[in-house]
C-alpha cells in the first residue's frame, strides 16, 4: 500500500475518509450545500414538478479521447433530466473505488467532474465514497443522481410521438460508442474520432423556448444507440418510425471505423446527442435553433413518424431498400471473420 493509492481506510468513515473528502473532493467541488458535509443537502428550490434521475457509470477505459468517466457521470445524468424538459438543479455523486486505485487518477477524475459541473452550471450537492477490497470492483464506479424542475407547459415523453412528426438528431451519431470500442480493441484509428460527451440541457432549453408544445419526445440515444432508442419510442407511442439512411449524420471516419470492425453505427452509444420528435411544422425551426449552439451544430432531420400500431422502426437505405431495425440484442460485438 502506498501513499499514492486508495486504501480501504479511505472508505472507513474515519480520518482517512475525512482527509480524502476535505483535501480532494472539496478542493474541486465547492457548492455550499456539499461543503456543509451533512447527511443530505437541503435545497431552496420550491416547485411542484420535480424530475429525478439516476445513472451509474462503469467504463473501460476510464479516460478516452474526448472525455473520461467523471465527465460522463455529470453529463449523462444532466442529459437524462433534460430529456424530459427538466432544468437540472443539483446532482449527487457516489463513488465506489477499488482498493489500490491511483490517487492521482482519482484526482484527475474529480477535477474533471468539477469542470463538467461548472461548465453545465449544475452543482454536486451531496456525495458518498466507498472503497472495496482489491478485485471486488474494476477501478472506479460512479453513480450520479440529479433533480430538476419541469415546466407545467409541456408533456415530453416517449409515449407522445404522433404520425407525421419529424425525427431530428441533434448531431453526428456513434462517436462515443466507436471511440470506446476502438480503444478497447487497441485499434488506432486516425481521424477525428472522439467521444461526444456533453451536457444537453442548454440545447434543450433553447429548443423549448422556440417550440414549447411542438416537442413531443426527447431521448438521448446512449446504450443501444439510435435504433434501440427509437424502437422503445415507437413501441411506447404505438407508431412506426422511418429513418432515411442518406440523412443520418455520421462522420466519415466513424463510418469507416464501424465498417472495419463490423459494427453498426445505429447501435452504438452516443453521450451528447438527443433525438427530438416534434410537430413537422416546427422541425425546421428546431433544427436551426439547434445549429446555432455548439452542442447542436450538426443537427438534422433524419426521419419521420408514420401511423402503425406495431411499433416498428425501419430504415430506407441509400439505394432505396427497406431495412427493419430491431432493438439491440446483448452487447454490440465486433464481427471479424
Amino acid at each position, binding site marked *: 500500500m502506498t501513499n499514492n493509492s486508495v486504501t480501504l481506510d479511505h472508505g472507513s468513515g474515519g480520518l482517512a475518509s475525512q482527509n480524502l473528502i476535505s483535501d480532494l473532493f472539496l478542493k474541486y467541488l465547492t457548492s455550499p450545500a456539499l461543503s456543509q458535509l451533512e447527511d443530505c443537502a437541503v435545497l431552496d428550490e420550491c416547485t411542484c414538478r420535480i424530475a429525478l434521475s439516476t445513472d451509474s457509470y462503469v467504463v473501460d477505459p476510464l479516460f478516452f479521447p474526448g472525455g473520461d468517466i467523471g465527465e460522463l457521470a455529470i453529463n449523462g445524468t444532466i442529459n437524462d433530466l433534460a430529456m424530459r424538459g427538466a432544468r437540472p438543479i443539483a446532482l449527487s455523486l457516489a463513488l465506489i473505488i477499488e482498493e489500490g486505485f491511483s490517487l492521482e487518477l482519482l484526482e484527475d477524475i474529480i477535477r474533471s467532474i468539477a469542470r463538467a459541473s461548472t461548465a453545465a452550471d449544475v452543482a454536486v450537492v451531496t456525495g458518498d465514497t466507498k472503497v472495496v477490497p482489491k478485485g471486488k470492483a474494476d477501478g472506479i464506479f460512479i453513480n450520479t443522481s440529479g433533480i430538476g424542475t419541469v415546466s407545467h407547459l409541456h408533456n415530453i415523453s416517449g409515449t407522445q410521438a404522433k404520425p407525421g412528426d419529424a425525427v431530428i438528431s441533434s448531431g453526428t451519431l456513434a462517436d462515443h460508442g466507436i471511440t470506446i470500442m476502438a480503444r*478497447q*480493441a*487497441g*485499434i488506432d484509428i486516425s481521424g477525428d474520432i472522439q467521444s461526444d460527451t456533453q451536457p444537453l440541457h442548454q440545447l434543450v432549453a433553447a429548443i423549448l423556448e422556440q417550440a414549447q408544445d411542438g416537442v413531443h419526445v426527447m431521448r438521448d440515444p446512449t446504450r443501444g444507440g439510435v435504433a434501440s432508442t427509437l424502437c422503445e419510442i415507437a413501441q411506447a407511442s404505438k407508431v412506426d418510425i422511418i429513418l432515411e439512411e442518406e440523412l443520418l449524420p455520421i462522420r*466519415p471516419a466513424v*463510418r*469507416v471505423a464501424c*465498417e472495419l*470492425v*463490423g459494427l*453498426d453505427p445505429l447501435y452504438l452509444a452516443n453521450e451528447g446527442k438527443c433525438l427530438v420528435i416534434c410537430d413537422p411544422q416546427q422541425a425546421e425551426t428546431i433544427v436551426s435553433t439547434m445549429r446555432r449552439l455548439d452542442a447542436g451544430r450538426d443537427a438534422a432531420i433524419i426521419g419521420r413518424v408514420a401511423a402503425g400500431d406495431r411499433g416498428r422502426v425501419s*430504415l*430506407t*437505405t*441509400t*439505394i*432505396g*431498400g*427497406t*431495412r*427493419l431495425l*430491431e432493438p439491440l*440484442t*446483448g452487447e454490440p*460485438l*465486433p*464481427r*471479424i*471473420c
Partner: protein
Amino acid sequence: MKCADEFKSRDITTPLLRELAHSLRRPVRIMEVCGTHTMSIFRHGIRSLLPEGITLLSGPGCPVCVTPASQIDAFIAAAGLPDVTVATFGDLIRVPGSRGSLATARAEGARVEIVYSPMDALNLAQQEPERKVVFPAIGFETTAPAIAATILQAERLGLDNFFIIAAAKTMPSPLEVLMSDPELKVDGLLCPGHVSAIIGARAYQPLADRYQLSCAVAGFEPADILAGLLSLVRQINQKTPGVDNCYTRAVPEQGNPRALQLIETVFAQEDSEWRGLGVIPESGLRLRADYRRFDAMTALPITVKPVTEPKGCRCGEILKGQLLPPACPLYKKRCTPLHPIGPCMVSTEGTCAAYYRYSE
C-alpha cells in the same frame, strides 16, 4: 481511407435493378455463399428491391454458423482451464455449444478476451507469459493466412504459451457437397468476394463445369451484389454457365499465391465436420506436424464429450438453403437472438438472425 460510397449510390443501383428486372425471364434460385453477402443484402434492404422471381438462399459461408457444437465446447473447455485466456474474435462469444457459450464461461469467471486479429492474441501471450493464450482459429481462407502468419511468428519468437484450436475451413468443397444434392435446386452461385481474393475466381470453374452452374464472384457493396446477380441471370438466360469475376478490383483469377503459400506451410487439409452439413472430406485445416506444439487440443488437457445437435433445430436444412427460417419449429419461439439454439440464430450474419432482425 474512403468508404466505397459510389457502390452504395442509387445512381448506380437503380439502373442495375432496372436491368435485372428487364433480364429476368423465369424464376431463379440463387445462393449467396458468404455470410457477409447475407448481411449486406439485409443491411441495404436489397431483397425489398429485387424483382419478384429472384429467390436468394443463404449458403454455408458464415464461419461461426458452420463450426460444430463440439468445437465450441472445446473453446469453452479451454476457457475453463486454470491460467488459460481464450482470445477470440467477437463473432464467437455468444455462439452456443452443447452447454453454454464463451459468454457464459466468462460470466462464470473464465478469462475470455475479444481480439481483432490472431496477432492480437499472440501479443496477449507475450504480455502475460504466466498465462496460456488459446486462439480459436475459425474462419475460411480469409482468416487462415493471418492465423498461419501468427503461428510462424510464435515459432520465431519461441513462444510456449500461445496455442490455437485449429477449426478453420476451406472453400469450395462444401459447395461441391451442396450441388451434388439432388434436392437442392440452385440456378446460380454468388461466390464470396473475400475468400475468392485468396483462392482466386478460377477455384469455382470445376463446379461450373460439373454441375452446369452459373457462378459470379461479387464484392459486398450493393452495386457489387446487384452486378453479380445480373451476371447470374444473364448466364442462366443464355445457358452459358461459367465463372464471371465481377469483383476484379479485389479478386485476381489466380488468387493470392503468397497467402496460399502461408496456409500451405502451416496447415494441411483434413476431413472436417460442418454444422448442419456433416463431415466433408478435405475441407478443414489442421496444423502440420512441424507446428503441432501450438495445437491446444494436444498441448492442453481439453476434453470434450460427444454432442448431439439440439432437438427440432433445422439449421442444417437452412444452411443448405432447403428451408427458410420461419419453417423451423423453433424459430422465434424457443430460438431467438437473445436465447439462440441453433448456430444460424447466433451469428449476426446467420440466416435466422438476419431474418429475425431485418425481415418483415
